[in-house]
């Protein structure tokens, strides 16, 4: 008798994803749903989606969701968590949301040590609006607003938000992963699970930065986009545990 070893997680609705073929968002949605299922926290989880491609995350994740203004997901999540500390609150944000317009909110939430789980999806462009340069765009990367590639003297340097947040005293667990291969996807799932666990153990701010391919705006095939992340993007954003003080805090 054949046994089913992989199926759609219960916390993921049956809707067809609106994302482009090969988009990392849908993989990360599934990982979040799997983690929520495994921890058994579906009935007490509240998510806050961003403005950006993932704005319709509530169409896919079968948990309570509250939409936030652009970049303010962490601020809204702070309110939810402080009003109802028994809930598990996570935000799901893209790089144009968390690393551009929402930098101030995010830095202060991390510094206050809010008990939040942040999923930070970094694809280096503003995906939904047509692939303009984002703060996280790597040097030399071609976007619609940097047709010849990003040049440091003109466009500034890529912003490493995770490294910034690691300096904040209130952050407890920060890891950078990617979703370019089955191995990396499993690592990402483990990181997301730990980030949820940190919040449930009431330790502090946890963030998982996921390097995600955007084949449409990078003008690459999905397989080439994954390869490009593995070869080029990781040079600017190395995959590693950036901060983990869960043990020392007891």
């Amino acid at each position, binding site marked *: *008798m*054949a*046994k*089913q*070893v*992989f*199926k*759609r997680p219960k916390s*993921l609705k049956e809707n*067809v*994803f609106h*994302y*482009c*073929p*090969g*988009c*990392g*968002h*849908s*993989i990360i949605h*599934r990982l979040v749903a799997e983690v929520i299922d495994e921890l058994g926290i579906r009935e007490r989880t509240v998510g806050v989606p961003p403005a950006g491609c993932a704005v319709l995350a509530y169409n896919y994740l079968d948990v309570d969701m509250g939409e936030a203004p652009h970049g303010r997901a962490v601020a809204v999540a702070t309110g939810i968590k402080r009003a109802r500390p028994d809930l598990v609150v996570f935000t799901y944000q893209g790089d144009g949301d968390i690393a551009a317009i929402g930098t101030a909110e995010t830095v202060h939430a991390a510094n206050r040590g809010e008990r939040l789980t942040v999923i930070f999806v970094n694809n280096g462009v503003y995906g939904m609006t047509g692939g303009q340069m984002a703060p996280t765009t790597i040097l030399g990367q071609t976007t619609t607003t940097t047709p010849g590639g990003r040049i440091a003297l003109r466009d500034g340097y890529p912003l490493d938000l995770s490294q910034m947040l690691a300096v904040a005293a209130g952050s407890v667990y920060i890891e950078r992963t990617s979703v370019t*291969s*089955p191995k990396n*996807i*499993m690592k990402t799932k483990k990181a997301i699970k730990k980030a949820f666990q940190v919040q449930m153990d009431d330790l502090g701010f946890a963030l998982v930065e996921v390097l995600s391919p955007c*084949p449409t705006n990078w003008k690459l*095939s*999905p*397989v080439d986009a*994954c390869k490009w992340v593995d070869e080029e993007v990781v040079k600017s954003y190395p995959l590693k545990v950036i901060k983990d003080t869960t043990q020392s805090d007891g």
Partner: protein
Amino acid sequence: MKKGFIRINTELCKGCGLCIAACPKGSIKISHKLNVQGYHPAQYTEREKSKSRKCTGCALCAITCPDVAIEVFRG
């Protein structure tokens, strides 16, 4: 060697080809047919009950699939 098989929901599939790159046995290809969304979906090239099938049910394709279109069975 353990045997397995997969089922691909062609209406969810967008033909990105990530499962084809992930499959260690080369058991998946892109179909010539179109689905309702207008994509050429991925197609499992082996038969579920065939004795000579190479699929081991490792689930790497399903783990990589962005659209959760693949179900994996073992046994």
